[in-house]
């Protein structure tokens, strides 16, 4: 499989934008489930950046970032599972699954 020169640049840009999009939503949205999704999207942006850099390398495709990203995906799933259980605990304890209303609505 060959990768030309321009495609990795497109995915590098996309990775950066995904990261920033996730970061913005993490700050702005108040619901905890949306915050968990935002962190996952930030992670996907970082993975895209890693793989884009790996595909751009001069000596062919670099397998080390691939291994890193596979490890990262599995760790992200386990962290998401723990976060979801914590969210349910917050909901059961406080009755709300979102941060308290102190800023602007939503």
């Amino acid at each position, binding site marked *: 499989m060959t990768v030309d020169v321009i495609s990795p640049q497109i995915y590098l840009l996309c990775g*950066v934008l995904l990261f920033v999009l996730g970061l913005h939503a993490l700050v*702005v949205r108040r619901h905890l489930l949306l915050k968990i999704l935002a962190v996952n999207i930030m992670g996907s942006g970082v993975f895209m950046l890693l793989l884009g850099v790996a595909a751009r390398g*001069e000596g062919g495709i*670099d397998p080390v970032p691939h291994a890193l990203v596979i490890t990262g995906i599995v760790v992200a799933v386990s962290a998401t599972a723990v976060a979801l*259980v914590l969210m349910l605990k917050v909901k059961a304890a406080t009755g709300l699954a979102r941060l308290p209303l102190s800023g602007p*609505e939503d």
Partner: protein
Amino acid sequence: MIRRRFALSPALLMSLALAGLLIVVVLDLPPQPGLAGPVAQAMDQAGVGHPVTAVLLNFRGYDTFLELAVLMLAVLSIWSLGRRDPIPARPVQGPVMHGTLRHLIPVAVVTGGYLVWVGSSDSGGAFQGGAVLGAAGVMLMLSLPREMPMPPALLQRLGLSLGVFAFLAVGTAGLLAGHGFMGYPPAWAYHLILGIELAAAVSIALTLVLLFLGGRSRKVRHDR
């Protein structure tokens, strides 16, 4: 609401500034050779033919070992947070779901095993195979939410820690045999890696199912 979302809040301004800075930095990255060369040079000692598997299980085995430990810790922390609720799904009526599952689960088991085995020479490996097996387990749990056929607690815990302990045992044996921690004798590397991958796939599949169920088992007493 819509109007407020488009307003220039400080958070939006900061995000846009961060995006601009990151784009400038990323497009300006100098070309670098990466680690493809060193990996290709070391492949004759790896024991497997696929570079990604070689990196995961041999060159950077320590990282993969710790990652399996992270998976186990995730299940343990969920277990420590309370007992599990029943899955919020109704039992499926009619023969379609059960008939489909009866054919699909064996296919998933064979696919998962094949993915683990093929990882030594082509794309695939313990994580992909374990994930397919875990997905099959999740489907099984979803189709029978009332009568979950769980193995006994001791067996669950053994399966959960199988990958970590197999990895640790092989790594320590490598240390005692003089190949360094997490080092393999090159002649046995293929068989050891395949064994670790099988154990890790079982652990990963079980971990995913247990993460999906969430919480300790309700029937078994854990507070001995």
